[in-house]
């Protein structure tokens, strides 16, 4: 069992409207950016920014804390792109023995592991007998700074 308090609910994305917002092209180092520094006023479409392949993109909301050191917090929204081929080190939504979980995929000499990003959780060895699939690679995390 990985961690029982991580649950995912999977949703599709309503991309029927484009969500545009104004982009600041200035480098943010310290202090406030001055609008005069960069090209102000270019509109970016958040759907296009976050979704490169709509047919293969799904959303999931995270419940649980096993990935907090990777920047994935309880309540965050994950954007999952199933068109991406999973590689070693990718964070992915995986299905293992009846549960969905989000973890880092780690390939070691003795096999595949699902690695949490929180020291309180153990690494999980994926035995060849287990019912395991990588459901989709996480491409973005949407995290609210203020709640």
């Amino acid at each position: 069992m990985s961690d029982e308090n991580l649950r995912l609910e999977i949703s599709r994305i309503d991309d029927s409207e484009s969500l545009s917002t104004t982009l600041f092209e200035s480098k943010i180092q310290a202090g406030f950016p001055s609008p005069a520094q960069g090209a102000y006023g270019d509109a970016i479409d958040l759907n296009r920014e976050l979704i490169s392949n709509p047919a293969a993109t799904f959303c999931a909301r995270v419940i649980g804390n096993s990935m907090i050191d990777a920047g994935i917090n309880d309540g965050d929204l994950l954007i999952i792109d199933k068109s991406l081929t999973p590689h070693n080190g990718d964070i992915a939504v995986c299905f293992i023995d009846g549960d969905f979980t989000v973890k880092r995929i780690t390939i070691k000499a003795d096999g595949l592991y699902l690695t949490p990003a929180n020291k309180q959780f153990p690494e999980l060895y994926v035995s060849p007998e287990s019912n395991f699939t990588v459901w989709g690679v996480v491409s973005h995390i949407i995290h609210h700074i203020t709640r």
Partner: protein
Amino acid sequence: MKLYGLIDCNNFFVSCERVFNPMLNGRSVVVLSNNDGCVIARSNEAKAMGIPMGCPAFQIKTHCDPRQVVQLSARHIMYHDLSQRVMSIIGAEVENVDQYSVDEAFFTLPYEDIERNHVLLASLVAKIKQYVGIPVSIGFAPTRTLAKIASHVAKKHPRITDGVYWLVRPEAIDIILQRTPIGDVWGIGRRLSASLTERGINTAAQFTQMPSALVRRLYSVAVERTQRELKGEDCVSINPVTVAHNSIMNSRTFAHVITKRNEVRDAVVVFAKMCAKRLRDEHVVAGSVTVYIRGDHHREDLPYYANSFQIKLPTPSSSTMTIVQHALQAFGNVFREGFSYRKAGVLLSDITSSHGIQLGLFDTKDYARQQRLMEAIDNINGHYGSHVVTLAPDDSKGEWRPEKSHFQESSRTLRIYTAML
């Protein structure tokens, strides 16, 4: 040579459920319709257990141990979403995609070379499996009718074919047609296949041997066209609009039996409106309107009555007003007091392209004006939800509505559906 493809999603509703619940893989799964609880999709395991399509949930036990079958309530919004994803993936790779149902689409192939097409389609099958999680089968052939048969072969033998099968060489077509029961041919319905079987025609191959004049005389030009298609002659593409959809139908089983005339009538009006909207969405018009109503076959305590009535329109139309008006007229001809009704439906047929409508001789309506009105209504409803502006006799909250527990509200938020995982 022009080649047609048919893509068919395998056990589509069950496959959709499996995307969000992989534990269902390898298990016997059926999806039930929302109200009457009849089987509308079966996994291969459920098919092997002998559960027939359309089987009411309470009769599953007569075919197998019901505890071994996972029974799920249909979630059409989710199926529609996954269907759109599949269709958009195909649309990026092949041409003239014509979606024929929620889980099937015809298209034309981009290359002359058969091998090249095969490689492309095999990669499409793999892509759809990875991107969406839905297994599909594709057949391709010189005609749509043959492409459909080829897709059945691909579906039956997924390991040998990798989900793609083509029927182009005459020898291969001959062999497959000999093994295809006549009832499996696209366009040969149950009644027609019973009639053909009575004449000793059991396979598609035998059907192609019948003299075409006889087919036309006994049945119809459409059936003769099916025969020509089986012989490799591409004839449905001559007028793609009329053939793309032979009919548009909207029907529903009610949550409870209904006896009141007004309630059944209101349901018919809503179905007629939905059908008319679809005509306009697809830029086609209908030449006739059929209304049917029926009781509940499972209620032996109630007298059973079922009937349908077709009305030919003076001029083919997609106007809600015209369609509703004729649907009401047809309804008046079928409805009988004193019976209980469990299902009603509206079927629009003789569908043709809306460009170049043949005006009836005695028809004096202002079509341009009606069309503008309809477009305005569609626009408003598209923006603000589907029942904001309606014509007078409409009771969208009526008794006939499906049971609330299964009815999914439309939602503009991200969480269109959530899978309990």
